[in-house]
């Protein structure tokens, strides 16, 4: 069982850097381990890494009390 799951979200190429930054911040606020953007050619690819509950704790913020 993987300790993390990475999601990918397509963003329009016209999305501003500020908007991408806000999207990344939102995912971090929601408990993501990390989030970053990659060039997908005609679009941006927003990748986010989430920990899996019940496995190794990858991010202290997501620790289950």
């Amino acid at each position, binding site marked *: *069982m993987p300790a993390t*799951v990475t*999601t990918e*979200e397509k963003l329009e190429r016209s999305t*501003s850097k*500020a*908007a991408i930054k*806000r*999207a990344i911040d*939102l*995912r971090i*606020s*929601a*408990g*993501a381990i990390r989030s970053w953007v990659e060039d997908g050619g005609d679009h941006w690819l927003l990748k*986010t890494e*989430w*920990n*899996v*509950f*019940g496995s190794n704790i990858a991010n202290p913020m*997501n620790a*289950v*009390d």
Partner: protein
Amino acid sequence: MLLLARSQDLTATVVAIEQLTGAVVAQQAVLSGQANSQSIATLLANKEALEQIGAQLERDQIAVQEATTAEASARAALDGEQKKLEDAQDALAGDPDNEDRKSAVDRAKIDVGRAEDNLQLKNSELALRKSQLNETQKVRDAVARQLDSATASASAAASGGGQFGASQSRDNLTDTTATAIASAVENIVTRVVGKNYLTDACIAIITQPPDPKMPLAERQETVRACYELMKQANRSEILRFKGVVAESSLEPEPIDRVKQLLALVSKLPARDAIRLATTPPVALSPDVEALVNATDPQRLRTRDASVARLILKRMLAVGAFSPAELTAWDAAMRAAIAG
């Protein structure tokens, strides 16, 4: 522009109230074009008829005078014939056997008879002429009265007279209706007087052409302040002018709302966090479903409130929910928190 908007709002309010309560205005003087033209037409027709009748009356009067003269002549002729008859009879009395005098008396009698017939004819003609004259006078008097009436009507129209339009009576209202109208008027006045024009002012600021003398940062700060004011003033107005706000390169509203929802998630009671994480108030997209199932394969969220809260945050962060769906989330969580 705002003053104009206020003025238009108040005007619309007055009109609306007048629709309910009846206008407080002077009665309107009304003289229709048809009534006016009828008066004029009657006036002209009567005048022409009266002129014709006047001429006829003159002819009738002349005829009566002629008939009177003829009757007098016939009467004089009869008197003459009767005198001749008397003379002939006197002459015959002096010589009863004189055949010539007998013949003269017979002719005199015939002439008297003709004169009597002629007088009777002239009397009848005189009576007829007088009758015609009398009828003509009656007709002239009747037409003259109509002319007077038409002239009076036309004079009233010319002087701005006429009938006053009846005002709509509100006397037949039931108590329930009167109460409802009073309530409606109160609501209208309350809404208009208490209307917030802050949003309108902000829209005007946001949409006006940028002042080249104003630094860009300052303008952005002004626009941002307006956006915050609008957000607090009326959420529906924000949605309505969302396009304008977005064009101003301000922060899109959905992310703000999601951040607010993330804060609410932390305040959810344990039982409600588990319930919402297990049964979300809105449908999840397949991608979100996959994320939830992949990161919580043991379904800890169904029994662990902490996991449930974290799952809820992930749902909200990547859910790409519509404003309506975010509203549903907001309502569900606030209801749960309010308990």
